[in-house]
């Protein structure tokens, strides 16, 4: 029984094949199929047939469509003409095109960045949320905490049926990890991306486990999952599964899994995950409502109404913590963050993991990109219309010959299309070239492969066609509305045209440019202000070592620290030396509630730092009242030093009043306030000052700060390293300079600064291109007028003034709009900063002059050219 070849393949063949070829091609293939079926069976013959059809799919088999449609011919004509017009006036055309290219390139670059930002955490299972809480003390919002209590996850799952699953992450897995190799070498690293997590971690998130069983890797105590790169760090090419790794010298963990390195667009970035059961004194803490260090994620049922669930969560803790809340006059509200929203919408959250919260910046950048694009199109409109004069004769003749208005409009739209099309193509090239430079210069991550993403491709199409229409319609109508008679006679415009559309466009362009310039000045000023502000402490020439965390026993680290301290004291190049639990510029996770006689029973949250007695003197933190702590006084283990902010928080009216009072009076653990020190900035000046309580503990050793006495850093560092390796062979030597470390906090501000400055520069540049176009337009009109004026005795400067006056009006108009608008925007922007520079009149004066000078320069380049021409030349032109 003969089976015909696949129908679709035959249809496809008939579709593409030219009529005069279909007989021989299809005939041969079907005949072949017929015989092959007998020999090889229907399947193979069918496949063979399909393959042959595909092989014939080539230009020589295609039908040749005859282009005999008039319209298509015209279209080809338009394109040809477009290229010719471009070539005829290269300067104008290139100005026009480069404006577009710049605008589109900016827009693309920013879109790439924005899409990258928006793509955060889009690979996790849906319906996953992070539970966070707002904490109120005495009805005042004290913190928006990302971590919550360990009991939250457990009780949510028990009490609310819509919560399917929860997982908790405890961020205490940082420290020294070490592995001993077969030849006795100790591989050791300080890891800061280590955490503890519940066993269903890999069920909750979209992170891929390369080795190990999803349900078992974190199910037992002393298990650890490493990222691929971490595994390579410790085990090289060997299989890490089943091997031991030691954590802080005391705990031996079994490697049970290897996970893929986390993608960049994840707000979680972990290298090591230890099973939560390994945590010291683990007991699941189902009743613990006081210890808020657990990042908690839940997955809810698909049908869940999130608003309803949010309402339940809002009151959840009021119920559960009633007693505690009443005692300390506090309250807390849980709320949900959808995981993909965490990266952008976590502004103002405390103790967050990763650098989250940039929605404002993203919106801001998008707005700038859009504005620049609009400026570029406006430019195009301006320049194309300006060229209308030059082309008016062409249009006139075309009309006389009988070209319809519709055809003319299509012609000009085609030209606009060509500009936009090539603008986009070149812009893509520019973007590809620019990306590596940008990533280098400001460390802004832009992924060029996103150019191939669907969103961008659609955007590009919209850009090309939308842009062509937007920028092409007005010039098309202006150009085609010329009356052939007046055009061909040669006079149809005078310099004094009424206030028109183009003038409006220029005002718009300059309004935007002025706002951007003023903004730039402010951004730069604010950054300077923050960096130059006194921090309240001295971080110069301070070398910080990450303290040892790998110990061999109970008092081991304290003992070894004593030895290390003695050795450092021998070194004359080290002026001073202090140990502390935290350093300036490092986010402080240690916060606790205290009561005082003035706090009316409330527990007030205050940051805690453990320091030794040299801390204040070395960092030059001034004493306001009382005294510093001293190890010579035995009682100082029960003493505390507060900063001014803490004094204010606890309700004391002055520093002196606080001295002699206690924290937690009448309770088992209480501390006497012996001193008050000046505030210093723990973080950048974006943040407020924090209340801080300093406790005395000479063994606090998270960080060792060394004040250096010398400029020969390599020598002193290598000397210290030698001593370190002798005393702490089990701990890595990690150091950094505190001033650099502190300034790194300004990274995002510096980025923003750079981006803003460059875009503002581009915007003004493009706007000037537009102005140049417009000036050329008017000056071109006024050639004859200028000629006559010159004949009658006007000087070059007089004529230039005359021309400049027209534009000065436009610029001043733009300023009148831009100044109040930018004042409002600048005030808004500054609100984000705890410490704000003043906006000041200076910015406006400087910015205003800057714009005027640039604009007038642009105007005079062209007008000087024309006003210097010999009037005989212009007047003879008739």
């Amino acid at each position, binding site marked *: 029984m003969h089976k015909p070849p696949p129908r679709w393949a035959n249809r496809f063949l008939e579709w593409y094949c030219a009529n005069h070829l279909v*007989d*021989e091609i299809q*005939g*041969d293939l079907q*005949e072949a199929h*017929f015989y092959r079926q007998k020999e090889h069976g229907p399947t193979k013959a069918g496949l063979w047939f399909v393959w042959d059809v595909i*092989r*014939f799919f*080539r230009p*020589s088999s295609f039908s040749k469509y005859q282009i005999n449609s008039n319209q298509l011919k015209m279209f080809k004509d338009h394109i040809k003409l477009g290229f010719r017009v471009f070539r005829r006036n290269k300067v104008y055309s290139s100005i026009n095109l480069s404006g577009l290219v710049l605008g589109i390139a900016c827009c693309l670059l920013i879109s790439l960045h924005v899409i990258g930002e928006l793509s955060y955490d889009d690979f996790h299972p849906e319906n996953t949320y992070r539970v966070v809480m707002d904490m109120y003390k005495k009805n005042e919002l004290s913190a928006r905490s990302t971590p919550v209590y360990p009991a939250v996850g457990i009780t949510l799952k028990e009490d609310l049926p819509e919560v399917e699953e929860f997982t908790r992450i405890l961020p205490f897995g940082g420290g020294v990890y070490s592995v001993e190799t077969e030849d006795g070498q100790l591989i050791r690293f300080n890891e800061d991306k280590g955490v503890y997590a519940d066993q269903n971690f890999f069920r909750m998130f979209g992170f891929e486990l390369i080795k190990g069983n999803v349900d078992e890797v974190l199910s037992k105590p002393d298990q650890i999952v490493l990222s691929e790169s971490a595994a390579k760090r410790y085990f090289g090419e060997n299989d890490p599964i089943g091997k031991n790794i030691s954590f802080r010298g005391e705990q031996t963990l079994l490697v049970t899994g290897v996970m893929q390195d986390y993608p960049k667009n994840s707000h979680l970035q972990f290298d090591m995950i230890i099973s939560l059961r390994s945590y010291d004194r683990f007991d699941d803490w189902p009743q613990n409502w006081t210890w808020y260090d657990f990042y908690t994620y839940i997955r809810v049922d698909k049908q869940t109404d999130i608003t309803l669930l949010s309402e339940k969560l809002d009151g959840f803790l009021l119920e559960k913590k009633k007693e505690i809340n009443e005692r300390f006059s506090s309250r807390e509200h849980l709320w949900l963050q959808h995981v993909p929203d965490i990266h952008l919408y976590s502004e103002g959250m405390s103790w967050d993991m990763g650098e989250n919260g940039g929605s404002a910046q993203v919106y801001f950048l998008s707005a700038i990109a859009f504005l620049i694009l609009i400026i570029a199109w406006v430019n195009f409109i301006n320049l194309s219309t300006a060229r209308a004069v030059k082309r008016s004769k062409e249009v006139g003749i075309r009309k006389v010959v009988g070209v319809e208005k519709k055809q003319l409009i299509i012609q000009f739209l085609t030209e606009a299309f060509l500009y936009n099309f090539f603008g986009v193509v070149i812009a893509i090239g520019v973007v590809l070239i620019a990306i590596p430079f940008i990533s280098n210069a400001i460390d802004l991550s832009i992924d060029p492969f996103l150019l191939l993403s669907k969103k961008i491709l659609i955007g590009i199409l919209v850009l090309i066609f939308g842009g062509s229409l937007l920028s092409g319609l007005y010039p098309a109508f202006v150009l085609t509305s010329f009356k052939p008679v007046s055009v061909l006679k040669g006079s149809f415009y005078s310099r004094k045209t009424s206030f028109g559309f183009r003038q409006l466009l220029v005002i718009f362009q300059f309004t935007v440019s002025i706002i951007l310039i003023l903004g730039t000045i402010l951004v730069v000023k604010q950054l300077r202000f923050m960096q130059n502000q006194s921090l309240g402490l001295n971080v110069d020439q301070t070398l910080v070592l990450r303290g040892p965390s790998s110990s061999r026993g109970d008092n081991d680290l304290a003992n070894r620290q004593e030895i290390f301290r003695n050795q450092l004291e021998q070194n004359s190049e080290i002026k001073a030396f202090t140990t502390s639990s935290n350093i300036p510029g490092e986010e402080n996770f240690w916060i606790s509630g205290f009561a005082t006689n003035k706090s009316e029973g409330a527990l007030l949250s205050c940051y805690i730092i453990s320091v030794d007695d040299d801390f204040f003197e070395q960092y030059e933190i001034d004493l306001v009242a009382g005294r510093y702590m001293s190890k010579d006084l035995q009682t100082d283990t029960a003493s505390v030093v507060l900063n001014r902010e803490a004094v204010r928080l606890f309700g004391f009216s002055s520093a002196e009043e606080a001295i002699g009072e206690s924290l937690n009076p009448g309770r088992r653990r209480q501390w006497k306030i012996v001193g008050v020190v000046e505030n210093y900035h723990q973080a950048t000046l974006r943040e407020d000052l924090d209340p801080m309580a300093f406790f005395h503990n000479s063994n606090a050793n998270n960080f060792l700060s060394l004040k250096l006495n010398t400029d020969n850093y390599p020598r002193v560092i290598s000397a210290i390293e030698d001593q370190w390796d002798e005393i702490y062979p089990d701990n890595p030597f990690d150091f950094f300079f505190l001033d650099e470390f502190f300034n790194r906090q300004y990274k995002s501000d510096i980025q923003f600064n750079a981006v803003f400055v460059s875009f503002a520069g581009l915007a003004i540049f493009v706007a000037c291109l537009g102005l140049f176009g417009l000036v050329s337009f008017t000056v071109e009109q006024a050639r004859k007028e200028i000629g006559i004026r010159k004949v009658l005795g006007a000087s070059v400067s007089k004529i230039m003034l005359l021309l400049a006056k027209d534009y000065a009006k436009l610029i001043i108009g733009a300023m009148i709009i831009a100044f109040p608008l930018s004042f409002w925007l600048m005030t808004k922007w500054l609100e984000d900063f705890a410490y704000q520079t003043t906006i000041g009149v200076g910015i406006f004066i400087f910015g205003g002059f800057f714009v005027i000078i640039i604009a007038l320069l642009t105007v005079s380049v062209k007008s000087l050219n024309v006003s210097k021409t010999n009037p005989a030349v212009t007047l003879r032109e008739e």
Partner: protein
Amino acid sequence: MSKNLGTLEETVLLIVAVLEKDAYGYTVSEEYFKNAGQRISISAVHTVLKRLEKKGYIHSEMGGATKERGGRKKRIFKVTKLGFTTLESLQEARMKLWGMMPKYHTS
């Protein structure tokens, strides 16, 4: 246009000559498989035939349709005079060369 013949072209031309009045895409490709022991696709055969026709070695006319072809007509190819003379001169040149071949003793 170059009148040179490639190996494949020459073989196909020979096959067309051999098949006499029944040379069209499918038969040529089958014949090629039988004699050369190698498959070439029908589309490749079509290309070669078209090229030969352009060079003037063969000419074509539409032939009858058959049931196996699904009612499609054949394009039948025949060798032209030029085709024959070219084949002959190629053969002659080759024979001449063969005549000059020294005798090899294969042991």
